[in-house]
């Protein structure tokens, strides 16, 4: 009983120490000025690698470079060279923080708009509030200390700015950071999570864009789940999450009969066809009720949905075939040396209309899709006509050339005959 009370008292003392509104004034220098303290100087000389490591990381730590000494978080007197004074509990020194105290300790500054304003005018200060609503925060509040806290993702010492490419929460690294726990199937099993989400995400078109095109705007874990308020989106909000980046698709989906039907079936909107983490690049081949076709998840051959899918699929197939044919013809005449800029513009128009037609699929209305595929047919038809004209021009030029060569050859022969006759 006594030991439990003691443990609770220690935790409370940590929380109380961490809950200071801001670091003590002597722990903070002017922003932009590197912190100077005796803590790092002393810790660098220690034999114990665990005690030396924080001091080694201090130079790259954003807090330290902005003038916040070790005492900013740990308390104590960073100006004293005497360890007994520097790490005196009476001076607010707290050694290693318990996991439950970390979020509150970080929040003591990061939730204080007045304090944070000194470092950046538009830095958010709602991280702690969001964290408390997150799956992580809720579990921590219930006493689960295996759960992620600030330092799990950002690191404890050597914390880097989020826009630093070396930071563990930088877009290209955050998947691995989340995967540190969420890729551990045994750990995740304790929370009823499969643990294959990271592996699935890595097959997705989103991940491909992130790592192959180095597109930092590509969605990562936090784009859909939130960062500090990390939580899985509910069935009803999936389309809002996807719609953040794909608003046109969401708008078209909202026009479709699927909107109400999915809601009634309590099926998520986008996820039902596109999956959640392993979001692959969609193809026109998905449309239909056959094997590996998504409409077949709910519809079967002969029903209204299957008929609509068949009409949509047919229209798209025809449009794609027409573009491919026109593109091939234009490429052939280009190789023959013709400039086909006008045809390229038409083909670009056709491709754009095809993309719009593919977006219209979300309305599941064949008429709306066909409106766009007609535009595809018109534009690729125009490109094809231009290619046909160019082919005719090539034939005309070659015919002209053969006639000219014939005339030249005749003149040559006549001249040679004349020369021979003259010199005989």
């Amino acid at each position, binding site marked *: 009983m006594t030991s439990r009370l003691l443990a609770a008292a220690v935790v409370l003392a940590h929380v109380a120490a961490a809950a200071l509104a801001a670091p003590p004034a002597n722990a903070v220098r002017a922003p932009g000025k590197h912190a100077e303290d005796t803590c790092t100087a002393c810790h660098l000389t220690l034999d114990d690698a665990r005690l030396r490591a924080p001091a080694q990381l201090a130079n790259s730590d954003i807090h330290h470079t902005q003038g916040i000494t070790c005492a900013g978080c740990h308390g104590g007197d960073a100006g004293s060279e005497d360890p007994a004074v520097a790490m005196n509990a009476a001076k607010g020194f707290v050694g290693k923080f318990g996991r439950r105290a970390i979020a509150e300790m970080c929040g003591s500054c990061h939730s204080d708009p007045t304090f944070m304003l000194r470092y950046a005018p538009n830095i958010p200060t709602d991280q702690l509030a969001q964290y408390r609503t997150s799956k992580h925060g809720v579990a921590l509040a219930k006493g689960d200390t295996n759960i992620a806290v600030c330092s799990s993702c950002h690191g404890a010492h050597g914390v880097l700015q989020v826009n630093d490419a070396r930071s563990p929460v930088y877009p290209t690294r955050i998947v691995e950071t989340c995967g540190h726990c969420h890729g551990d199937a045994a750990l995740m099993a304790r929370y009823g999570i499969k643990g294959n989400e990271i592996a699935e995400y890595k097959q997705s078109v989103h991940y491909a864009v992130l790592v192959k095109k180095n597109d930092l705007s590509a969605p990562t874990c936090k784009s859909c789940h939130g960062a500090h308020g990390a939580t899985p989106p509910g069935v009803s909000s999936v389309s809002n999450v996807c719609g953040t980046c794909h608003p046109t698709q969401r708008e078209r989906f909202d026009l479709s009969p699927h909107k109400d039907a999915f809601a009634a079936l309590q099926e998520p909107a986008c996820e039902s066809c596109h999956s959640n983490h392993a979001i692959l690049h969609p193809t026109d081949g998905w449309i239909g009720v056959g094997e590996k076709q998504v409409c077949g998840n709910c519809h079967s051959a002969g029903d209204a949905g299957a008929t609509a899918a068949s009409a949509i699929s047919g229209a798209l197939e025809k449009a794609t075939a027409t573009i491919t044919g026109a593109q091939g013809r234009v490429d052939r005449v280009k190789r023959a*040396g*013709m*400039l086909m*800029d006008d045809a390229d513009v038409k083909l670009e128009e056709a491709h754009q209309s095809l993309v719009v037609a593919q977006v219209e699929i979300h309305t599941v209305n064949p008429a709306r899709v066909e409106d766009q595929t007609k535009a595809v047919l018109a534009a690729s038809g125009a490109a094809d006509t231009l290619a046909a004209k160019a082919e005719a021009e090539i034939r005309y*030029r*070659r015919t*002209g*050339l053969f006639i*000219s*060569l014939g005339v*030249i*050859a005749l*003149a*040559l022969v006549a*001249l*040679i005959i*004349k*020369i021979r006759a*003259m*010199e005989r």
Partner: protein
Amino acid sequence: MRILDRLWRALDDRLDLAPLVEFATHKEVPQHRRSWAYYFGGLTMFFFFVQVATGILLLLYYRPTAEAAFESVQFIVTRVPFGWLIRSVHSWSANLMILAAFAHMFSVYMMGSYARPREFTWWSGFVLLLLAMGFGFSGYLLPWNELSFFATRVGTDMVSKVPLAGEWLLKFLRGGEEVTGATLTRFFGFHVAVLPMITMALLGVHLALLQRQGMHIPEGLEEEARARKPLRFVPNFVMREGVVWLVGLAALAALAAFFPWELGVKADPFTSAPAGIKPEWYFLFMFEALKLLPAHVLGIEGELVGLGVFSLAGLVWFLVPVLDRGSQVGHRSRAFVVLGWLALAYVVSFTLLSFAGVFK
């Protein structure tokens, strides 16, 4: 016919043309086993005339500014009736002209035709070849496409290596520090005004010297030339030259129709240079040799050494009629024959090897 006779009489009365006709009808061209080489000069001139004619037609639509040059050439090859043909013939004829000029130069050299008293003909021909290369270099930039832009940047950059005057020359050629619209306007000026004017004058001198001195009979073939009946210049040689010109015309037409000259993509000074930038083929033998040189030779910048060697070689080539003392008394020294073959082997092999991608 009576009208033609009257016209002739009227002109002759005023201009005293009869001696010229008399000269032309009596002019003879010697015949021997190497007399086929006499046609290269005429062929070069034919391509030059094609250049003048097609160049004037291109001028009707071409606009020499960085903003409009590429688009105007695009307009010529897509919208102007037969514009594609004119542009393609202009580009092909330019290359064939240089090729014919090189063939002419080497055949003249190998036959020792530069020897006294034809030194001035050699010198004027040498300068005409440089002018032709100047036409090629300045004309290459005019379509303002990516390749020509970067090739011009590399080419003009070489000039900056010239000791003392390098920086000034670079600015003079580029019209500033960089290749810009100012360079394009300047090159256009050189291409359509300065170079044609000098070329026309020099070509006149070259032809006048030729008429004045007649064809040279190579050393050792005098006997054969005496034995064979010479060709009358008019009409026999002129008609034979006509045959060669017609073959040249047929080649041009076929090349222009089957291998239309590409336009490429518009130059963008802010992009990085595409890989494998090369000058026109007739600069390749120098370009590749310069690339092979190490960065420094005996403490001097490699490119500077290369340019020095090429300048010196050019000077030797130019002064061959003076340096080859034997040729002045009718016996070419063996060393200069060997030099000619070495030069030909070097130019041909480096150009072909460059096309084969050996220097990559």
